């Protein structure tokens, strides 16, 4: 497996030969920042396109096909449009908070986005409490939603934001629990380390068998809820609250929410891929050496994106199948079902790990 850290190390060494180290780090930061922003934009566009196509296919339609070949340029057109839209300033809103809200959401998704290990040696933020950091920063998003609802000075966004607050905080617990379950298996919080382990010993979902699969399912449900996507899209419940917390946002303000929604979807999927499905680790079958060699020729980031988009598809499949829950049902699902099950699951995993029952 190709280790990307060779490239970055070579680049770093190359620069330090000519210029002082602090400047090198500065330059690298800028490069990384550009990398993140570009990747962020590309992924968002790709995901929006995918969502529109996949949803169309679920609904026996064909989706965008008139702008560019197969409608590939559709989302670009949307972006141009959105950039040129007027941003409405409302008299009665709390202007500063109203303008800040989308950036909270963006910040949260940028920070979580940087945690993802793309390839071997290709991580941006990678330190020993990676998962802990991930959970912590993803919690910033809820502030953005609450602010957006509050600052809009309107009834529907307010209801949406309050729903969202209750929902996100509850489901964060499940996410934490499932991650904790997997940490028991891995024994480390460093994301690169978790993936490396899986490359060496097999994917976590296989190694952890029953409790890992259970955790995976709970993670998918809770992650879906974290992204505010159907069937948990109560905060923006189109048919009830018009557009929920971002009802009053126009132009790019809304555009940021829209982008962040899809990016959160990707981050959720990428995390699932990293923790459960082995991140950039290729698919190995013990004993099939020929097969394994071919698999290892496929670059790591291809594996990673393949897995992440597989999970994205799963999430979309769920979204385009189920009706929306009611707020009390949503909370009872979390507190009565998911929470107790994931607690039980931790114990189960502890037993499995303790007695060496892993595969």
């Amino acid at each position, binding site marked *: 497996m190709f280790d990307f850290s060779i490239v970055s190390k070579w680049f770093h060494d190359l620069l330090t030969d000519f210029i002082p180290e602090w400047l090198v780090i500065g330059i690298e930061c800028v490069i990384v920042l550009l990398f993140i922003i570009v990747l962020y934009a590309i992924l968002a566009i790709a995901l929006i396109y995918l969502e529109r196509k996949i949803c169309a*296919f*679920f*609904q*026996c*339609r064909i989706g965008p*096909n008139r702008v560019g070949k197969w409608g590939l340029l559709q989302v670009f057109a949307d972006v141009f449009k959105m950039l040129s839209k007027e941003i409405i300033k409302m008299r009665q809103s709390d202007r500063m908070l109203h303008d800040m809200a989308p950036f909270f959401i963006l910040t949260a998704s940028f920070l979580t986005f940087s945690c993802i290990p793309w390839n071997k040696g290709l991580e941006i933020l990678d330190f020993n409490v990676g998962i802990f950091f991930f959970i912590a920063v993803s919690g910033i998003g809820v502030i953005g939603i609450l602010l957006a609802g509050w600052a809009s000075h309107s009834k529907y966004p307010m209801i949406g934001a309050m729903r969202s607050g209750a929902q996100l905080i509850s489901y964060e617990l499940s996410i934490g629990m499932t991650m904790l379950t997997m940490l028991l298996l891995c024994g480390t919080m460093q994301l690169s380390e978790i993936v490396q382990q899986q490359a060496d010993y097999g994917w976590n979902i296989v190694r952890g068998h029953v409790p890992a699969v259970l955790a995976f399912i709970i993670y998918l449900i809770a992650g879906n809820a974290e992204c505010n996507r159907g069937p948990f899209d109560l905060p923006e419940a189109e048919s009830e609250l018009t557009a929920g917390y971002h009802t009053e946002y126009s132009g790019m303000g809304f555009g940021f929410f829209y982008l962040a929604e899809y990016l959160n979807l990707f981050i959720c999927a990428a995390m699932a891929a990293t923790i459960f499905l082995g991140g950039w680790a290729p698919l190995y079958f013990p004993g099939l050496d020929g097969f394994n060699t071919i698999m290892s020729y496929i670059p790591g980031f291809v594996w990673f994106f393949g897995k992440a988009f597989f999970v994205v598809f799963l999430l979309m*499949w769920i979204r*385009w*199948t189920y009706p929306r829950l009611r707020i009390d049902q949503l909370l009872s699902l979390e507190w009565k*079902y998911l929470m107790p099950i994931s607690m039980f699951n931790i114990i189960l995993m502890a037993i499995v790990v303790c007695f060496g029952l892993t595969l």
Partner: protein
Amino acid sequence: MNNNTYFGGILDAVKSLTIGLKTSIKVFFEHHETEQYPENRATLTFTDRNRFCLEMPHNENNEHKCIACGLCQMACPNDSITVTSEMVTTEDGKKKKQLVKYEYNIGQCMFCNLCVTACPQGAIQFNQEFEQAVFDKSKLIKVLNHPGSKCQERPKPVIASKPTATPQGQPAGTQTTGEPKTETGETPQQEKVAATEPIETKKED
């Protein structure tokens, strides 16, 4: 397992949710029968019962069948037809009504077909041209008679060889060829309409 118990409920829920997923993925791989409109313009056809725009067929001599009797105008529930006519004296000295302008407001029309059924001559009919969107509202008012057009000389009344069942019904002649058709679809009742109704309007006016 009993659905009312905690675990029974979970199992039942999982089962029903799986059925949902199964159904949606089945449809995912089905064939999609979407009609792609601008691409299928060439093949898009409608039966002649579809009513999208009123028209007055003209033959190759630029002649229409309208005798400017105004029955369609009266039959219209919301005044979307305005017939302007003038009295002219024909060569043999008779006074005759002649159509000057037949204005039809497609923006107001409700496509109820009453004008077509009221027409004793079969001079107007609905066509299947649905592409009618315009930028300017005044373009919605259409003049149906072509410039310089004349009323077709009516053939001698033929005694209906095969009387159709109905005074209402399709326009008697869905005329696409220029041949003047004999009005066999007319029933005596329609003649009566033509005879009586204009007088009544005059009273009302």
